[in-house]
């Protein structure tokens, strides 16, 4: 059975890109538009990996990651942070919030799939 990836990003462009890259790599994809929506989706879906953006309305990536790590059922799911910040404060905050790893934008499908493979068994 193919692995399911939950993507959380407020940008439709980015969601569509993730969808294309991930489904071409053979993953099933579930989408959410921000942190709040992501946590809602987690009430029904059981993803193997979560890929999330940081800058989002309503609930940003940090809040979302903390929410997942507090979640009884999903706290062990690997979370990759999608960020244009290649280094520094953001990555550090994401890590402290409980991110498993990160993917540096500009978006590159090869790097994305590679990072997912690294964190998912």
């Amino acid at each position, binding site marked *: 059975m193919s692995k399911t990836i939950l993507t959380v990003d407020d*940008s439709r*462009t*980015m969601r569509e890109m993730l969808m294309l890259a991930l489904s071409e790599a053979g993953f099933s994809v579930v989408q959410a*538009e921000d942190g709040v929506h992501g946590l809602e989706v987690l009430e029904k879906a059981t993803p193997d990996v979560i890929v999330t953006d940081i800058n989002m309305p309503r609930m940003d990536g940090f809040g979302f990651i903390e929410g997942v790590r*507090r979640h009884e059922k999903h706290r062990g799911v690997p979370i990759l942070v999608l960020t244009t910040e290649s280094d520094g404060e953001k990555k550090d905050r994401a890590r402290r919030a*409980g991110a498993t790893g990160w993917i540096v934008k500009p*978006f590159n499908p090869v*790097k994305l799939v590679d990072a997912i493979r*690294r964190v998912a068994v």
Partner: protein
Amino acid sequence: MDPMAAIKQTFFQECEEQLVELESGLLRMEDGDDDLETVNAVFRAVHSIKGGAGAFGFDELVEFVHVFETTLDLIRSAKLAATPAVTKTLLRASDVLADLVRAAREGGSADAGAVKIIADELSALLGGAPRQDDDGKVSVDSLDFEPVCISLDSIFDIGEPEAPATQDFILRFKPAVGLYAKANETLRLLRELGRLGETSVECDTTEIPLLTELDPEGAYLCWTIHLTTSAPEQQVREIFEFVEWDCELSVETADVGKLLEALQESLEPHEAPPAPIAVAELRDTSVATDPAPTSFAAPSDDHPAAARAEAAKGEGSGAVQATIRVDLDRVDRLINLVGELVINQAMLSQRVSEAGLSRASSVAIGLDELEQLTRDIQDSVMAIRAQPVKPVFQRMSRTVREVASMTGKSVRLVMDGETTEVDKTVVERLTDPLTHMIRNAVDHGIEKAEDRIAAGKPEEGSLRLSATHRSGRIVIEVADDGAGINRARVRQIAVDKGLIPAEANLTDDEIDNLIFLPGFSTASSVSNISGRGVGMDVVKRAIQALGGRISISSVPGRGSTFSMSLPLTLAVLDGMVVTVGGQTLVVPLTAIIETLQPKKESVHELGSGARVIATRNTFTPLIDVGAVLLYRDEPIEPTSQVALLVESESGAKCALLVDAIQGQRQVVIKSLETNYGHVHGIAAATILGDGRVALILDVDAIVARPRADMIVADMPAAAE
């Protein structure tokens, strides 16, 4: 479509939305809104454009957005105050950004000079050298688009031809609790190492406590991995990129490792596993233990408060709505089908009533319910095409800025009711007339600063753009607080241009509305601001083409208000159903000013068959619709008829003679051209309740033709 092309299309659609968000946020900031969420929304809009632009390789765009974003980040982190001067620059930057997006979409290039001017202004706000900022924060962010991240593929590409030789590494790896809490796993790291070459792995389990003391989420294992690989050390370390804070790690080449082992053996010959601390002394950078590993239950609490605050504000501008995107053709097909349904339902009702069934019969009651449902469905379907006027309104703020800066005036645009919805086509076709009106208002309506001060007004002019729903239509107003219409001058121009007779007795209102006459232009010279010699008549025609009406009211010294009333949809029409020569016709209600019963004494013959009717001290041509459409040959007695006083798009008034008025009705518009062909004098068709086709009158065509005849008929008389 190629999936990437489809995503690119999404990107540009999203850019448009983000630009609207950006501008509205900046305008709120300009109004003194210093709410952090407003700044965040603005930042997100720019950030989001940057993300997509980077992925598609729009370098010019990325470069500009980057400076823009960095500036916004400074404001977000309160390192730069959003003073009026700063927000003005940001607003102009948003204009440039819109140009760059358009250039990227159309494959052209933006005005490089303009881009540079704003980019330099933004850089100046950043203190000129964002990349060398001492406090580190800005420089870190400004690095985020540097190509520092080298993909594994490129490492292979570079590495293979030059360094095929293998190397032996000894890795010591001791995971901390935080590593597991973040869903990383030793097993996966070992597997990744295995991909690089040959590995042998030892696990030191000596730290595992007794079962009673064992924390099920604790970290007790220490791993030693011997790796033989052709990959460089950097690549080996990269595998631990995500976990380096949550573990103790050392990576040595085998030579150093052997030396170390020998050293340790000589010091403590009986101690089996090497103490990790000793190893740490030899490492250069890689060991970093997390001082406070984040646990599942209690995440570090420096930001949840902020996250909650942000979540609580979710109802604001940044709130996400559940939406789906549907091809417009599908919606239009649905609208068309619902139109058929409405017609069908009307036919059914009529047949039932013709069959003599009582209104209390179950069939009639069922039909009433059907009628209600059909109407609800129609309204709901029309609502799908409805869009807020916000995007058009926001475009106007740019127009105001541009014209204000060209004329050296200071003008403030206030918007109201941007969420008011109207049919998509109406929204799209509003831009041009509205732009023209706004330009006019800033250029001619609002006075120069010194004149305003002299008149005791604030130096800054105010322009108000508002939209409201009023009795099934949308009313859009453009109000300025300028000098108002100079009636003496308008009247003089109209007389000079032969638009009105010199002795004409006009009310103030009538004088104001002279500016809508074709060929009228109050500008002393044709400026490139108010448009290429385009007058308000063009605006009026554009509004009327949408089934709308426009009027102006003006108070000298206080300003002018243009008011437009437009239908909410173009698929249905409010019509007056009339009978002419035994045929049923529909006259658009928007064209009708009033209906009258012609009296014998008010109708005058002009000769050559032309007649006029005296109404309110003016003479209006009388047109027999039946004769124009060739329903009858014989002239008819006007007093037995009903006259509809109508106004054409060009402002010409006429009285249309019809046999009788049946009533007022909303009709579904069916194109005659697509189903049959163009017929002069007829705009479209509709299907009535009894199943018959009724033609919708093209008032303009009807008014224009006999008028031309009349002028020809009048000419000899005038010459004599």
